[in-house]
C-alpha cells in the first residue's frame, strides 16, 4: 500500500494493481467500455484515459500500473475533451435510433453520451452498412450498433471457450462476426447469451418472443400457460429498481395473471421432477454399470457444447430433459388430459433466465407428434418489458400463489437457480433413494458458492460418490479434458453454462455485477433455509403425478415424455 495523488487528493493504491482499480476503490468514476472484471486489459476503448505526470500522452488507467509518487488527473479539461470526442466518434458511426432500440434507457453508450454532455453531431460522415443476423433462435446480432469493444468476443473465447465469434476484417471495416460471416445458427454458438449480457449497446440482444406472446395473450382460442424458472423470482426485482436479491415470486405471479396467463406454474416443480428422474438414472447407472460420470442436462447451452465439442461424451449426458421441457411435456399431456383441453390449443410460455432455452424449445426432439413442449420462451428482461408495457407496478402488486398442481415445489427445486443447486438437490434425493432415509443435514456446503468448480466426496450409505459442480463452459472444458485424459473418480457432475449458474444467465437483467449475482444466490439459499419442504421427493404434487400418470421414475411414460436423446452435432468450428 502506498499513496498516489489523484485530482490533488491523496488516495491509497496497492502495489501491482492497475490505476483503474485504485480509482474505483476510492470512489473516482472513470468510464470504460472494453474493461472486464478479472480479465486482462486490452486497452481498446480509450475511455478510461487519464493524465499522468511525466507521460506525454494520456494513458489508459485500465492498463497502467500504479507507482509511488504518481500524480493523476482524471477529469481535467484535456481528459474530458478526449473522452467526449471518442464518444462522438462512436456516435458518428452509429444508427442514432435510440428511441427504437431495445437498449433505450439502459445502453452504456447512451449513458456516456449523456454524462459527457454530447449535444451536437460534431463529426458526420458515411455510416457502415451491415446486415442484421436473425438466424439464431436465441440471439440477434445487429453489427450496425456494435462499437467493437470486444467484450462479447472475450466472454465467448476466454470465459466460455466457444469462440463462435471474433473480430473480422480490419480498421473501420472491422466487425464482430462468425467464421465466413455466416449466420450465428450454423456457427459453434451455444446460445448462452453471455455476449448479450456484456454488450454495452443493442448490437447483441435476445431473439425476442414478446410479440408472439402478446399476440397469443389476446387470442381467446388459446389456453396460455406460463412457467417461471427458479432464478427469475430473485432477479426480476432489479428490473424495477428494487434491491438485488429481493424475492418477488408472489408479486410476479400476480403480474403474470394480470397479463392474461391462464395458469402460472413454477419450473421448480419440474426441477423436483427432474431430480427424481435424474436421481434414479444415476442410481441405475451406478448399479448397472452405465456410463459414468453422469453429466447433468438442465442447461441447454451446455448440452450443445457437449454435442459440438465433446461428441465422445454425449453418452455421459443424462437423458433427462431439462425442467423447462419436462414441464412443457407434462402440461400438454397429463394436465391437458386432466383438464380436458386439446393440447393443440395450449400455448405454453416459459420465463427463463436464459437465451439458450429459446433454442432448446425449438429442438425437434423437444415435443411429441409435432407439438412442441414449449411454444415461446421469454427472458427475465423480456418479462420485465411486458410488465412495464402493461403499466403494472410490480412493487405495489398484492402477492398471489401459483396454480396447482405445478405450483408446488421443494426448496431443492428452487436451488436449481444457482450453481451447485442441482447437485445439492440430487444428493438429498439420492440419499433417500439409496438408503431410504433423509440426510441429517440437508445443506451441502461443499457445492455452494460462486467458484468455477466445486468438488466433493459424498457418502450415501455404503456408497461414496465423487461429485462436482462446474459453472462457466471454460471451467467445464477443463474438467472434460481431465475426463478425456482418464480421470475416473467422479460419478456425477453438474454443469451450468453460465458463470454462477442461472442467476447470471444470458437472459438476466443488465448491469448485474458480481454483487448482484451474489445477492441473487443468497436469496435462493435463504428460501432453502426458511422453508420446510426441502427435498424433491417430498413434493406431493410430484408424487401424485407419478401415481396418477407416470407410474415410476424411468418408467415407460417417463421415457416417452421426460427423456430424450442427444447426438453429436456438426457446426462451423
Amino acid at each position, binding site marked *: 500500500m502506498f499513496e498516489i495523488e489523484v485530482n490533488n487528493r491523496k488516495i491509497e493504491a496497492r502495489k501491482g494493481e492497475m490505476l483503474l482499480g485504485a480509482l474505483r476503490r476510492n470512489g473516482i468514476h472513470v468510464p470504460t467500455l472494453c474493461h472486464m472484471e478479472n480479465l486482462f486489459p486490452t486497452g481498446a476503448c480509450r475511455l478510461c484515459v487519464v493524465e499522468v505526470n511525466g507521460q506525454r500522452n494520456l494513458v489508459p488507467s485500465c492498463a497502467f500500473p500504479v507507482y509511488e509518487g504518481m500524480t493523476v488527473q482524471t477529469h481535467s479539461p484535456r481528459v474530458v475533451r478526449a473522452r467526449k470526442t471518442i464518444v462522438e466518434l*462512436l456516435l458518428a458511426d452509429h444508427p442514432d435510433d435510440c428511441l427504437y432500440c431495445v437498449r433505450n434507457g439502459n445502453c452504456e453508450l447512451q449513458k456516456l453520451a449523456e454524462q459527457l454532455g454530447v449535444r451536437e453531431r460534431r463529426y458526420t460522415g458515411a455510416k457502415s452498412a451491415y446486415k442484421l443476423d436473425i438466424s439464431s433462435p436465441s440471439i440477434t446480432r445487429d453489427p450496425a450498433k456494435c462499437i467493437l469493444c470486444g467484450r462479447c468476443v472475450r466472454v465467448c473465447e476466454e470465459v466460455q471457450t466457444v469462440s463462435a465469434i471474433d473480430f473480422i476484417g480490419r480498421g473501420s471495416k472491422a466487425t464482430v462476426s462468425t467464421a465466413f460471416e455466416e449466420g450465428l445458427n450454423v456457427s459453434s454458438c451455444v446460445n448462452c447469451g453471455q455476449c448479450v449480457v456484456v454488450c454495452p449497446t443493442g448490437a447483441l440482444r435476445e431473439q425476442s418472443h414478446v410479440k408472439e406472446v402478446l399476440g397469443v395473450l389476446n387470442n381467446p382460442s388459446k389456453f396460455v400457460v406460463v412457467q417461471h424458472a427458479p432464478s427469475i423470482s430473485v432477479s426480476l426485482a432489479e428490473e424495477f429498481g428494487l434491491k438485488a436479491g429481493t424475492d418477488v415470486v408472489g408479486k410476479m405471479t400476480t403480474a403474470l395473471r394480470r397479463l392474461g396467463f391462464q395458469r402460472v406454474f413454477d419450473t421448480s416443480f419440474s426441477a423436483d421432477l427432474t431430480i427424481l428422474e435424474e436421481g434414479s438414472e444415476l442410481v441405475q447407472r451406478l448399479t448397472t454399470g452405465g456410463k459414468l460420470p453422469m453429466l447433468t442436462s438442465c442447461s441447454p447451452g451446455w448440452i450443445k457444447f457437449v454435442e459440438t465439442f465433446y461428441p465422445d461424451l454425449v453418452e455421459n449426458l443424462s437423458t433427462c430433459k431439462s425442467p423447462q421441457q419436462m414441464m412443457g411435456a407434462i402440461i400438454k399431456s397429463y394436465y391437458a388430459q386432466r383438464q380436458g383441453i386439446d393440447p393443440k390449443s395450449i400455448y405454453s410460455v416459459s420465463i427463463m433466465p436464459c437465451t439458450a432455452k429459446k433454442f432448446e424449445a425449438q429442438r425437434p426432439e423437444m415435443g411429441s407428434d409435432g407439438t412442441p413442449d414449449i411454444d415461446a420462451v421469454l427472458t427475465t428482461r423480456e418479462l420485465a418489458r411486458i410488465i412495464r408495457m402493461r403499466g403494472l407496478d410490480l412493487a405495489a402488486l398484492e402477492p398471489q400463489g401459483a396454480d396447482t398442481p405445478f405450483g408446488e415445489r421443494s426448496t431443492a427445486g428452487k436451488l436449481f437457480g444457482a450453481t451447485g443447486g442441482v447437485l445439492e438437490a440430487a444428493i438429498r434425493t439420492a440419499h433417500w433413494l439409496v438408503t431410504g432415509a433423509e440426510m441429517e443435514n440437508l445443506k451441502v456446503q461443499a457445492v455452494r458458492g460462486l467458484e468455477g468448480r466445486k468438488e466433493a466426496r459424498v457418502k450415501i450409505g455404503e456408497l461414496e460418490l465423487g461429485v462436482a459442480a462446474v459453472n462457466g463452459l471454460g471451467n467445464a472444458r477443463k474438467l472434460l479434458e481431465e475426463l478425456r485424459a482418464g480421470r475416473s473418480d467422479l460419478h456425477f457432475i453438474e454443469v451450468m453454462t453460465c458463470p454462477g449458474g442461472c442467476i447470471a444467465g444470458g437472459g438476466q437483467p443488465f448491469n448485474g455485477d458480481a454483487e448482484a449475482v451474489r445477492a441473487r444466490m443468497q436469496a435462493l439459499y435463504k428460501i432453502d433455509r426458511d422453508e420446510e419442504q426441502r427435498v424433491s421427493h417430498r413434493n406431493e404434487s410430484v408424487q401424485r403425478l407419478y401415481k396418477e400418470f407416470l407410474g415410476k421414475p424411468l418408467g415407460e411414460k417417463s421415457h416417452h415424455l421426460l427423456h430424450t436423446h442427444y447426438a453429436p452435432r456438426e457446426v462451423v468450428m
Partner: protein
Amino acid sequence: MAKLLEEKCCERCRHEPARPCPDLVACLSGGPICHKDDACRAKRRQRMAQYRREAPPKPVVFLGTGTCGLGAGAGKTLAAVKKYLADKALDADVVEVGCVGLCAVEPLLEVQPVGRARVIFQRATVDKAPSLLDGALSGNLPREHVLAQYRPPAGSSQQAWDGVPMLDEHPFFAPQTRWVLANCGVIDPRSIEEYIARGGYRAFTKILRGSTRQELCEMVEASGLRGRGGGGFPTGKKWKFALNTPADQKYLVCNADEGDPGAFMDRAVIEGDPHRLLEGMAIAAYAIGATKAYVYIRAEYPLAIARLKEAIAQAKEYGLLGRDILSSGFNLEILIKMGAGAFVCGEETALINSIEGRRGMPRPRPPFPAISGLFGKPTVINNVETLANLPAIAAHGAEWFAAVGTAGSKGTKVFALSGKVANTGLVEVRMGTPIREILFDIGGGIPNGKRFKAVQIGGPSGGCIPTEHLDIQIDYESLKTVGAMMGSGGLVVMDEDTCMVDVAKFFMDFIQRESCGKCIPCREGTRRMLEILQRITRSRRGEKGIDALERFKGVMYLTRLAEVIQDTSLCGLGQTAPNPVLSTLRWFRDEYEAHIYERRCPAGACTDLLTYSIDADKCKGCTLCARKCPAGAIMGALKSPHYVVPDKCIGCGACVDVCKFKAVTVE
C-alpha cells in the same frame, strides 16, 4: 570456385567442414591461426583476394538484379548478356548483385575485363547490352553510357580507365558514408565467402570468444546507436532490459516489415548484403542471450526472402548459426516469418501478435516486449538497419561509431530517395547532414526545371519539410522541431505540381485503411479525418446546401480531432496518424485555404477541382484527344469541334498533352 569451407591450407589445419574450427573466420581472413607458415598465410590471403575479385582470371559481368533493377528490366538484360557470352563463346563470370543505390539509372551493367577496373554502365537496357559488352571487353568504352568506374583496390594490378570518373567521386556517391550499404551492389549476395572476404563475421566470432553479454550491451549503448525503424530508442538500453530480465527463453526479432510506403532500405540491404544482417542478428542475440531469432519480413519482398533463406543455410553450413556455434556453447536458430500485409505489424506488439498467429493488433504497454514479449518471454525487436550497423560497431568499437554524427544521433542513416527528384535511389549519409545536401547534391535536385515544394520524411507517421527548413540537419531531435520525424528513412520529394492537401489525404487514406481497428480514436477518427479532406478536395458538382455546411464544420474540428487521436490512441501508428495533416496544415495553410475558400487546387493536382473544356474555335476536330482519353469523356465528330463530358472526365490531363492546337483549357 571450390567451397572455401572445405579448404585446408595444409595438413596441419585442424579444420573440418562438419565441425568448423572455432577460429574459422579469423583463420580464413587473416590466418592461419593454429600454426605459423608464410606459405599458408599467402594461400589464405590469395583466396580472400580472389573472393574480392581483385585480379580475376576471366572477365566478370555484374548486373544489379535487385527488385528495383528487375523492375527496370535487368532480367531481360541478364538474358541478353548470357546469350551474348554464349554466342561469342566467351568464358566470363556473370554475377548478380544487389542494388548499389542509384535506382534512377537502372539497369546497371558492370564489366570487369581481365586486368581492368570494374566499369559501370547506366540504363543498360536489353537492346544496349551487346554493344556495351563489346565496348568494355574490347577496351573501347561507349563513354556516353558509362556512369563511373570502381577505384582499383590498393596494391591490386587493376588498370583504371582513363577519363572515366571514379565511383566514389560521382556526385551521387561522393557525399555518402556507406557503412550499412558498403557491400550492396558490390558483392554477390549469394556468396558467404565474398562477405567473409570483406571482413564479414569477424566481429561476431571475435565476440563469441572475447566479450561478455554485459560488455556488449554497454558497448552498443556507448556507441549511441538508436533504433533505425522510426522510434529512435537507444538500442543498448533496450538490450539491457532484456538481458536483465531472467527467463528460460529469450527472443530476438528482426523487424523487416518495411511498411512505410516510400521506403525500401531494408529490402535493399537484405537483397544486396544478407549476411550483414545475419551477423548483426547473431551479435544482438548473443548480447541479450536469445537462442531463437525471427526475421519478420514482408511477403511483398520475395527476392529478399529468397536471399535471406539462402544466407541462413550458408551460415549454418559454416557453423555460424545453429547449435554450439564454433564450439562456443552459444546456440542460435534464425527463422523467417513472412508478414501477410498489414502496416500496423511494424509496431512491436502487433508484430509479436502476428508471429504468434494472431490478428496484428497492438497490446497496451507496459509490459514492454523487452520484459514480456513474444510468447510472454523477453524479446528485443530491432529493425534491419539497426542490426546491420552492429558488425561495424563490434569491429571498430563504440568510439569509432560515436565519432560520426551529432550530439544525440550517431553514425549514419540510410534513406530511400524517391518522388520528384533526379537521382532516385538509396543513399547513406552521416547523421547531421543537411537535408538540402541530400536532395540537391546527392539527389541532383528537381527534374524538368520544376520548383521544389517539400520533402516528406518519416512516412505516414512523419511530416513535410518546406523550403525554408531545408538546411535542417538530419537527426532525431532536429526533425521533431519542424513537426517531422526520422521514421524509417523514406524521403519523398514533392515539387510545385504536388498538392499538399492531396498528400495529406493520401496518407490519411493509407492510415485509415491500415488502422487495425482496435482502439476507437484511430479507427473512427482517421476515417473522419479522411472524409474531411475528401470533402474539401471534392468538386461542388451535385453538392447540396448541407454538404457545404458539413465541409466547413469538418474543417473547424479537424485540428481538435487530430489532437485527440494523437493524445489517446493505443499505439504509435495511431498516435502519429494525424502528423501528415498537422504538418501540411502548419507549413502549407495557404493551400488548404485555397481549397476551402476558393475551391481550387493551386497545384492543379486535385483533379476534381479542375474543369477541362475544349475551345470550339481552336479545335480542328482531329479526334486525337477523343482517342487518347482513357475515360471516353471527349465526344465529337471528325473535323467538327469536340467537347468534354464533365461527368465522365477524370481530369487526367491526357487531352491537354496530346492537343496540337492548344484547344484544351483547364480551370
